[in-house]
Structure formats: C-alpha cells, structure tokens
C-alpha cells in the first residue's frame, strides 16, 4: 500500500469515523467535543469566577475549594474520576463522549474561573467605587461596569485556554473515545508502514485548529482595541 492509497482509503474515516453507518468519530467528533466543551465551560467559568470574587463567604468558600482541588489534579485524573467514579455514584453508565465532556467542562470551567477572577480583580478599584457611589447595585456594577472591561482584558488568556481545550480532547483516547487521535492510532495499526506520516498529519490537524482559533481571536482583539482603548492615558 502506498501513502496515497492509504490517504484514499482512510480520509473519510479520519474526518468523520464510521458515520453515517456507525457512530460519529474522527476530526468531527473532536470538533464537536471541543465546541460543546467550550460552550458549556464558558458560562460555568463565568459563574465560578463571579462566585470566587463575591463578598459572600458561603459562596466563595466552596468554589475556592473546588478550584484548588481541580487545579491541583491532572486532567487525566479528572477523566478517570468521571469514567470510573461517576457511574458508581449515579448507577448510570455514562457513554464515553458524555464522560469526556463532563471532565473537560469541569476542568476548563475551573481554569476559566481563575481567568475571570484575575480579570475582575485587575480593574482599578476606582471603577467599582465610582459605579457604587452613583447608586448602582453590586450586580449592576458587575454587569455594566466591571465585566465589559474585564472580559476585554481577559481575551488573550481566554484564547489560551480555548486552545488548550482543543488539545485536551485528545485525552479521550484513554477511555476509548474515537476522536481524531484514537482514529489516527487505529489507522496506524491497520496500515502499519506510515507511522511518521500519520502522526505528522495528526499534529498538523491540531495545529491548524489551534492556529485558526488564535488568528480569529487576534482579529477580534484588534477590533476591540480600535474601537477604544481601555486605558485612561492621563491617569498617573
């Protein structure tokens, strides 16, 4: 089998797995997992981050504990928890996709929460004081004054975390999820003679995804910066 014969035979399998006859897999599954993970982790991260900076101890305390536990644990361990521990509690066998998704959302949510916290606490104290002295409530101050500014400052760190999420989907391999790394390994086992090429293609695939996302973010950042600069230049 030549290299091009291999490409001709397996390209569709690489892209979508055994879909539509069998379950979805390959690159499509990786994309689905990454986007679903981010879509759920962003609101979770925002909520956890707000909880962490909230003045109410009963709320910030437990969330801080969660952040420390998850941050002090490898993602692989979180995946194992979700895979082995979760079914023993719920008595429902979660499928591999859901398992991986849950682990990713929890892990990313915690990291995003720390980014949100840093973004909020990085704002000058006077911004909150000015808003509160006008009579805006804590929530109104967050929504109309703090978050619009903080989110803009957070953008580079957020993108960093998004890129990490895309790459982290590859850990689904370990619990037998047929995402693109698993599929590449399967193809390698079947074909056997082109390991270098196969894993180069796999690496290139991740690179294109992450690079593309970085460019989109860069473009977004520039557009926001053009509209107005958030630093008040005349302040000492």
């Amino acid at each position, binding site marked *: 089998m030549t290299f091009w014969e291999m490409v001709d035979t397996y390209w569709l399998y690489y892209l979508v797995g055994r879909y539509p006859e069998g379950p979805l897999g390959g690159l499509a599954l990786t994309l689905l997992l990454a986007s679903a993970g981010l879509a759920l982790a962003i609101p979770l991260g925002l909520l956890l981050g707000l909880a962490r900076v909230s003045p109410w101890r009963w709320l910030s305390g437990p969330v801080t504990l969660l952040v420390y536990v998850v941050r002090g644990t490898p993602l692989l361990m979180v995946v194992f928890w979700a895979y082995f521990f979760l079914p023993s509690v719920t008595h429902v066998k979660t499928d591999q996709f859901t398992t991986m998704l849950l682990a990713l959302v929890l892990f990313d949510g915690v990291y995003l929460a720390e980014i949100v916290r840093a973004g909020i606490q990085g704002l000058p104290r006077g911004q909150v004081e000015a808003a509160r002295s*006008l009579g*805006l*409530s804590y929530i*109104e101050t967050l929504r109309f004054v703090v978050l619009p500014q903080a989110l803009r400052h957070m953008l580079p760190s957020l993108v960093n975390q998004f890129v990490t999420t895309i790459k982290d989907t590859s850990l689904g391999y370990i619990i037998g999820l047929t995402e693109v790394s698993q599929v590449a390994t399967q193809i390698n086992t079947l074909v056997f003679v082109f390991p270098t090429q196969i894993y180069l293609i796999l690496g290139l695939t991740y690179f294109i995804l992450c690079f593309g996302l970085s460019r989109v973010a860069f473009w977004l950042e520039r557009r926001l910066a053009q509209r*107005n*600069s958030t630093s008040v230049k005349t302040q000492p």
Partner: protein
Amino acid sequence: MIRFENVNKWFGDYQALVNINETIRQGEVVVVCGPSGSGKSTLIRTINRLEPIQSGRILLNGEDIHRSGLNLNEFRSHIGFVFQQFNLFPHLTALQNCTLAPMRLHGLKPGAASKAAMALLERVGLAHKADAYPSELSGGQQQRVAIARALAMQPPLMLFDEPTSALDPEMVGEVLQVMRSLAREGMTMICVTHEMGFARDVADRVLFMDAGQVLEEASPDTFFLDPKHPRARQFLADIRIPFSPTL
C-alpha cells in the same frame, strides 16, 4: 443637612478620624484642607459609606446613614461623588457615562436620559465631546464629564475628593469654573481641595484637618489671613512657598 456626632474611624491600629463633631447646613459650601494623610478624604468618603466608621453617628437629614438595613444604593444615588482620579468608565462614551445610572436607577428611557445628559454636558462645556471616549479627553475634560455624571442623578449634595489634584496646572481652572457655578446655584458641597483661590471665592467655611482631627474651622478670610492653630499656620506657609528651604 449632615451632622457628625463623635465619629471615630480606624484602619487597623491607625486612627484615621478622631472624635469628629461637625454640622453642614443645606446650601453650604465647605472646603476641607490639611496635609496629606490628615483624614480629609476619609472624612468625605464616610459620608456616602465608601468607608465604614467604627463609632459615632453620621446623620443625613436626621437619618443615621451607617445603620444596617439602610437602602445603600438608594441613599448613594442622592449624593454626587467626584474622585481625584475621575474614574470615568473607559468603555463608555462621555454621554453613556452620564446616562448609565439614570437609566438603571430612575428608569429613564434612552431618549430622555440622553437629553438630560446632553444638557449637563452643555453645562460643563462639553456637549461637543458627547460621543468621545474618556481616553480621547484631556484630564480636565474627563473631570468635567465626571461632574456631569454625578449631577445626572440630581443629587442635593455633592462631594469632591481633591478634584483638581491629578490635573495638569492649565486644566485646573476649567474644573474650578464648573464647581464655582455649581456653588453659586446653591448646591450643598463639601470639597477636599488645596485650591485657596476657590476656597476664598465660594466657600462658606474652611475646615482644617490634621492627624484625623478638625483643628480649626473658620470663614475663608479668617482662616487664610489669621489662622489660629500653629499647625494651620505652618500648613499655609508650606503651601504658599512650597520650595522654601527650611532654615
């Protein structure tokens, strides 16, 4: 209008306000001055509860403002506060800075809020900068927008915390001009400032503070021409000839 009764405040071990007893009447313009660290900023920050107090009472129109259960947001919306560092919201235009609070708190429609805010920007001489972002304005312009933003809530009382101290010298005049016209219109104002010309022009009273205490209170003329307390004399000498060598 405002009464301080035996107010004490500590930052940890450090006592920032010592037994403050003071009354400020409706329509009065009071200037608070004193060396840095004397507690003057702390004093006016306790009036809208940006700083808590540890003992004593502050009454606004007879109501204890540091009691728990006070509707803090409602209460603060009746006091305008102008900061040394302006603290405009950098992601909003000058106009939006002035419409945010009235729209949220008074439930004004955008049209009505903009109209009212434009009138205020006109009053501080910045109607033509309504769509500019704070980063596009000079320091003096930013501070004038900040005054307009505070006025937008139609507060009966305005507090100024060293409003001209962060400004380049040539911009001080334009801000004082706005404050002068406010004072002449009968606004109750408490201004922490070292602008002696301003104090002589419009202040009804000057309070001199040092080490958390009000050491002297007098009419501007009496205070500037014939200060009683030695510390006040020293202070006035220092700010008049700032770089004189100590002999």
